[in-house]
């Protein structure tokens, strides 16, 4: 559910640290009808121009808190609220080139009453401003 709203392109941009471009950011929503604690946010698959981003290079900011995606499973209190646009930061020295990029996002939700959980999926072509 909510698949077509999962990738939020408005915040798609390269990020700089100390004068260096260190990676890029985009906005994500979860494919579910309530807010959940972060440990219920299962596997997150992001591909940019067909290339999958390593889990270790991703962190997510929700509710003012930033966590490596690999650590979400250890967080049973902090929540990703319903409809909240989380900011995904991907480590990529030099960032992405200006122009169009195809972004694909698949998100597994570990919801207890659904035996195997379920996936949401969105893909969008986003424009990165120069």
């Amino acid at each position, binding site marked *: *559910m909510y698949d077509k709203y999962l990738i939020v392109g408005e915040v798609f941009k390269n990020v700089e640290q100390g004068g260096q471009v260190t990676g890029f950011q985009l906005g994500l929503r979860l494919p579910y*009808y309530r*807010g959940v*604690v972060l440990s219920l946010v299962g596997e997150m698959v992001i591909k940019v121009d067909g290339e999958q981003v390593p889990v270790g290079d991703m962190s997510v900011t929700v509710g003012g808190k930033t966590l490596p995606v690999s650590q979400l499973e250890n967080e*049973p209190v902090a929540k990703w609220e*319903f409809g909240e646009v989380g900011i995904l930061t991907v480590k990529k020295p030099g960032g992405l080139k200006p122009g169009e990029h195809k972004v694909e996002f698949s998100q597994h939700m570990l919801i207890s*009453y659904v035996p195997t959980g379920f996936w949401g999926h969105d893909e969008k072509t986003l424009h990165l401003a120069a």
Partner: protein
Amino acid sequence: MTIKRGVSLYSFQEEYFLRKMSLEDILATVAKLGIQGVEIIPDQMIPGYPVITDEFAKRWHGWMDKYGLTPVCIDMFLDWNKFKGRVMSDDERRDSITRDILNANKLGCTVIRVIHDVSPAILEPLAPIAEKNNVKLALEIHAPSYYTSPLEQELMAMFDRVKSPYLCFTLDLGVFCKKLPRVVVQRFVRDGMKQEIADYLETAYNDGTLPHDNELGKRSSNLGDIVLSMGGREQDVMLAYMGTHMIYADSSVLPQYIPYTSHIHGKFYEMLPDYTEYSVPYDEFMPILLKGGYDGYIDSEYEGNRWIQDAFEVDSTEQVRRHHVMLKRLLGEA
């Protein structure tokens, strides 16, 4: 004995998700539609739940006063898998539900919709604290389960033994889904399912030959095989499971279960311009609920949004408005 009309704010989730409507906007709309009762999924529209701050509670009660609404029900979830590498113990589960009871009381709600996968052994010891807080624990009967399903029968036995009015059922009217919602079938096709598979699922559902089990959370083993044998994809199997779990249960047995039922979800998928529901025949079972003396709220629960949102603008307000025009007619209020 009266049947009162309410709405689960779940019905307005699309507009809230997209931040087109705030919680207060939705409550103002509910009041404008002439609906009395309010049900909320706290995890959906109360950020930070299960913490309900005094400030939020004050605002909530202020809105109830301002818009002349009655808080009725919260819908709880039991995230027993939220701790890495283990499931919650029984005590942790009871603690989680106890917190919901206190929160329901804080919001002025007198019912909790208890998620269906809570066992009788978890619920039974909670009766005293539920009573103390005047909050009924109403476990949801939701398709494909019905009163006659195994867990529900175990609960009935426990209810009969304990005899507490605070342990009871919520009935989701999606158990009386006579036709597969066309919004579901149309979505199957938009998502790339072959037309003949979608047609098969619709026809087989409507004539009662679609294989499925009568317990929520369990899967018919051969529905997936059928979809694959017709040339379906893996995602078609998933779609078939997600989209056809409704049932058309026997409403004639309702009278014997009404005394155990304290709350009702008025599930609907598509209200038509003529104020009928495309797939759920309210005309068939509403007279049974009235005659059987059901005493409580029917809270609208619009669930068509998720099936049309890929291609159409969702208008939750209009769908809920039509649902209440229908309910008023069937309740003799119109």
